[in-house]
């Protein structure tokens, strides 16, 4: 009985420390020191929320760079994360890859036997991956140059400017944030007008 009473008291006070004081302390500090990051790295145009730096968006129009296909339906729903969980020998995985490879070839005017980068045809783990590989971005340059009347060189420069590097050059992969790329495209279009 003595230990039961101690259990309840210990549970109560330690819960208070770990479950309320600790998250509150972190929230207060985070909101004071890194308010922009702590609230989701939100991108705004005026009062309009455009999205988050860190969360991918669905792009299907030909004049935008396209991101990775995603497993959850609808795609890029940032209140429903997850991967396909298809095993490597699953026929559905291969069938999906066949269809997406073909689509990428057709959309970008590639030869019908061209191989395409894996990240552009296979779904991510989060369903929200904001990045593609630089190779996947460059593959779309010709299509976008045609659609938007921008030179291919200029597009390649935009890709380069938006390429993020691995930590210390080794940890993580070189990657391009698709939303940032497309925001850059739109701002060029606005400046021209």
């Amino acid at each position, binding site marked *: 009985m003595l230990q039961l009473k101690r259990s309840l008291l210990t549970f109560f006070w330690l819960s208070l420390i770990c479950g309320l004081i600790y998250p509150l302390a*972190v929230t207060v500090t985070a909101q004071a020191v890194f308010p922009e990051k702590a609230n989701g*790295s939100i991108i705004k145009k005026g009062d309009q*929320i455009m999205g988050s730096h860190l969360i991918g968006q669905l792009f299907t129009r030909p004049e935008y760079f396209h991101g990775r296909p995603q497993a959850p339906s609808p795609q890029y729903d940032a209140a429903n994360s997850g991967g396909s*969980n298809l095993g490597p020998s699953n026929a559905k995985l291969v069938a999906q890859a066949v269809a997406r490879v073909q689509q990428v070839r057709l959309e970008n005017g590639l030869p019908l036997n061209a191989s395409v980068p894996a990240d552009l045809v296979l779904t991510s783990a*989060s369903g929200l991956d904001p990045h593609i590989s630089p190779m996947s971005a460059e593959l779309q340059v010709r299509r976008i140059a045609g659609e938007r009347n921008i030179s291919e060189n200029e597009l390649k420069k935009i890709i380069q400017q938006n390429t993020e590097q691995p930590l210390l050059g080794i940890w993580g992969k070189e990657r391009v944030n698709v939303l940032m790329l497309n925001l850059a495209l739109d701002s060029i279009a606005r400046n021209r007008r």
Partner: protein
Amino acid sequence: MTSSDWLCVILLPFTTTALAFPLGEFMAKVFNGSKTFLSPVIAPLERVLYRLFGVDEKEEMSWQTYALCLIIFNIIGIIIVFILQIIQGKLPLNPQKLGSVWWDTALNTAVSFGTNTNWQSYSGEQTMSHLTQMLGLTVQNFFSAAIGITVIIALIRGFVRKSSGSIGNFWVDLTRSILYVLIPLVMIWSLLLVSQGVVQTFSGSVTAQTLEGSRQTIAVGPVASQEAIKEIGTNGGGFFNANSAHPFENPTPLTDFLEILGLLLVPMALPFTLGAMLKNRRQGAAIFAAMLILYLAGLGVFAWSEMQGNPLLQKVGVINGLNMEGKEVRSGIINSVLFAQSTTATSCGAVNSMHDSMMPLSGLVLMFNMAIGEVIFGGVGTGLIGMLSYAMLTMFLAGLMIGRTPELMGKKLELFEMVMSVIIILSPAILLLLLSGIAVTTRAGLASLGNSGPHGLSEIIYAFASTSGNNGSAFAGLNANTVFYNLTTSGAMLVGRFSTIIPALAIAGSLANKKIVPASIATFPTTGLLFILMLIGVILVVGALTFFPVFTLGPLLEHLLMMTGKMF
């Protein structure tokens, strides 16, 4: 593998070991009651808390009392988490107005977080209110990790003390684990994570208008504070369904590195704590070495298998068949491999990629890490308990060979210790095979499969290896949110946890009672290379004998059939 891939593989174990050693020494001081650099700040708070708890700091407990306190404390936690989920709809901090959780899911989650497993049959952002995540789940993340630490400390005291009836004070050990070890680490970690973009707010979702004009609902919450303890306490339960693959849990390569580092840190430090408390640092280093060798060997096979790519995908026009299914671009292959190897070797279970989509032989390594009982670093505390049980088994076998009563670290091992350590080693394994057997022969078990063929069997084995080893990661194609899986995995988690903890305390009590045998010329040295190799051998033999048949039918068969171009 590229040269930067190799550098990642070298950088990680090197950095973690460099940090684990001082942490291990620090923990030894904390649990010996010595002064540390944190004492001036924390000791006054500690004294106030003992008064509030009604605990006498000086009181010593027998192993039975220690176990009783632990069990009561753990059960209260499980009950509270269960109730919180059922009534969350009526409680504050619920901006998404989420309703009460189904009873079987709520039970499974309560057991899961109470046992340091963090198996999640629910989807975080759609099921749990902010209050449940904080006051229920985050709290259990601390408590279950702290309980793991208390038990290993008690077991170490069993080896250190001579002719003593007590193994320490549960309340004191628990409080110290939280105040001196976990809280300082998670404060540092959570702020580092926020600085990179992990969210930390009490607001509800943000609604954005995308460039193409559709609406995107972006779920946020107090993520960083839960993320930090999720790794440091080897818990692994994510705020979001996608866990550490979600950009709000793990946005950059730096957070990726910090999270792997965090989940390895305390389990890696504990062997050094053992060495420091025994005042035999070579002993701690020897145990650490055995763990590290197993970790690196598994990593080698795993990285090789995953780097090969998927031949089925290569054939249909994917460059190199690179297996990016279920992986994030910012992590790529090698960091997904390092994360997965670390999260299954320790009993963390956080994931930055979807294990279900890994190559068959990669899956085999992951299942092996969990099935041998989570002893390669393992869970916070429980990993070293498992490893010491294997060490006892090793010395028993060595004793049989040379015809002497086995000894380990100065204590004679007799019938009682051997029975208990075999219970620790075998109960999760037996349970895994039994429950997998039931699942593959019943309709309820098979209805949940997300993949067919041998990969389907792998999904079931993985589920029970993960839950009985208190890991919590999943081959998530399996729909585990059914009454059948919620109940069977709850059982596996409870048995997996308490068949480690209770026998470990029993061994601690029995060893503490014994005299210390002075080392003589006939003592088999347990700090040398021979011991390390024998220990690894015993683990591999036990693992192979128990799981070879079922691994052959699952991942191995899938690998062979895939090589011939077969799909399912």
